[in-house]
């Protein structure tokens, strides 16, 4: 479904992403892990069309993604790390606008809004201004805005930053439901427990390069089991692959 090959991006002298390749299939959640500055957001930005890669290719259902107006972009939904919403508008007006960017109108738009809002549990708050929402509600609406046009591929850039456990759990439920519907999800996060719960496969990148790509079970086997028995944690795998030095 989504296939990226040898993506490369440089900002001046800084190589942000170097030869990153990955594939996501329908009904799969791919966790993209990495320390700060590893190149996760840059990778997501290139897939979403926000950045032009210096090299490499992005294919959706085998078709190369090209240009702002490529209709294939309709198959991608982006949930940015920021709360990309108009606080002064109601939830309904926000979704109406974002839906129209994908040429949704009339009954189709109303239906899409109803589905998205019901999924994230905000159906009863659709006429309220976003500025009256809690942080968790805004996060859920942020997710709904990315789902509105029913994309096959969802790019989630740290979608749970700053939310309480209840909202985070609700978002996880939403994502699992989307996976069950056959959507392909690319999920970037710093939180190991999120990746452990959600991801079917994990790609760990560091300094712009893929350092591991495997299932959770496969990653656990990359380092020896702890002396006291049991299996290694994802965090210990992550630290062993990326090191313990601080990344600012």
């Amino acid at each position, binding site marked *: 479904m989504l296939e990226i090959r040898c993506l490369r991006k440089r900002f001046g002298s800084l190589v942000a992403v170097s030869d990153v390749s990955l594939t996501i299939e329908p009904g799969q959640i791919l966790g993209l892990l990495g320390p700060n500055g590893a190149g996760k957001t840059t990778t997501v930005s290139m897939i979403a069309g926000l950045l032009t890669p210096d090299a490499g290719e992005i294919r959706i259902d085998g078709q190369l993604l090209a240009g702002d*107006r490529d209709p294939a972009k309709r198959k991608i939904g982006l949930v940015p790390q920021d709360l990309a919403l108009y606080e002064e508008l109601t939830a309904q007006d926000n979704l109406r606008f974002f839906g129209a960017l994908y040429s949704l109108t009339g009954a189709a738009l109303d239906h899409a809004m109803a589905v998205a809002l019901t999924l994230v549990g905000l159906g009863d708050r659709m006429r309220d201004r976003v500025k009256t929402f809690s942080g968790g509600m805004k996060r859920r609406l942020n997710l709904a805005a990315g789902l509105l046009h029913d994309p096959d591929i969802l790019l989630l850039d740290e979608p749970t930053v700053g939310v309480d456990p209840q909202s985070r759990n609700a978002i996880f439920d939403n994502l699992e439901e989307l996976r069950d519907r056959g959507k392909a999800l690319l999920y970037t996060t710093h939180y190991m427990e999120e990746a452990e719960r959600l991801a079917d496969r994990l790609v760990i990148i560091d300094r712009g390069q893929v350092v591991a790509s495997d299932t959770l079970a496969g990653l656990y086997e990359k380092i020896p089991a702890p002396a006291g028995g049991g299996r290694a944690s994802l965090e210990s795998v992550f630290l062993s692959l990326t090191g313990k030095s601080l990344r600012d």
Partner: protein
Amino acid sequence: MLIPFLAMVRKDLRLFFTDRRAVLLTFAAPIAIASFIGSITQNAGRSTERARISVAIVDEDGSTISKTIVTDVQKDENLTAVTTTAADARERVRRGTSSVALILPRGFGENAGRSLFRPAATQARPQLDVLFDPSRTAEVGMVRGIFTEHAMQAVSQEMFSGSTGRQSIQETLNALDSSSMPADTKARLRTMLAGILAFQQAAPAAPQGSTSGVFSMPYTVHEEAVTARANVTYNAYAHSVAGMAIQFLLFAMANHGIEILTERQRGIWKRLRSAPVSRYLILAGKAASGALISLTSLLISFAFAMLVFGVRIEGSVVGFAAICVACSVMAATLGVLVATIGNSPATARGLTTFGILMMVMLGGAWVPMFLFPAWLQRVTFVIPIRWAIDGLDAMTWRGVGLSGAIAPTMMLLGFAAAFATIAVARFRWEEA
């Protein structure tokens, strides 16, 4: 592409109208300030401050005196004088090309010379027609003063040394016997004139000027405020509303552009760019919503001025509409350009505020442009506000027809094209 475009316009309008402070600043503030300024300037007195003033001068006389005056006026460093016909002079004043027009009628030189030595013979004085731009009344006084200086020099020089002077003095001497003035005065005048005549014959190239106590103002002045038509008086509110409305809509559009930077900071721009819409369409949507807000602001300001202060479109309604639309498009594209200045809303706001204030001042919205030095007056031709204000003035109280709207409209659209081109070229499209 129409659905996303309209959605962007609708969203921006909705956001604008939910911000009461922005609405108040854009719609109410220009009306309030324009009302205040208009009330001050409606009956403004004449200023004595001076600068180079554009004058049209018409010589219907063609005498030695009138030719000398025209030459001296053209040489005067306080004036920029052009010679033309009476009809063209009137048109130049009406269009604002010249602040004042001076018309020297046939017989001006001869009658001025005679009147110099006959202060009591008021009927013989020639009339100098002064046509002036009522929005530049301060300049009329200066032109009159300068003209008086040149006229007195030319007349006295001719009277003391020229052939017209000899003839005029001789005629005055001949007419003295039938004059009703007292005999001793007659005798003194006869002696003086005979002395001047003798002086002329002895020294034809007499020094210029005279300090004789018998001199009088050799002409009377007829002033006429030239507006759209004879029965239309100047309405200062038309000018102040144009200036203030444009000033505030530029600030509104700057904020509109800064919104792009805010959207970028908040990540909304990522959502827009990830949609299958052209990057140019996104900016066009922003510009279109800005143009609509600007146009609404302009029309509300003028509607208020029409209802409350009696401002009228004395020229072309179509021309007025064209200038309003062009001005709105110009302001909207300026707003988009603002989004390419600086990396943060705070930086852009600071730079933009300074830039707009400079443009407003140079555009003549605050201070009459004739007070500027000549080089600065030339600079104002590259200030879009000047074209907007001049165009709106032309269509309102000046009563200029559609032809008067063409240049301002084209210039404003030219500025809009330039702003849009620079904005597109400078815009940071990529989102890290």
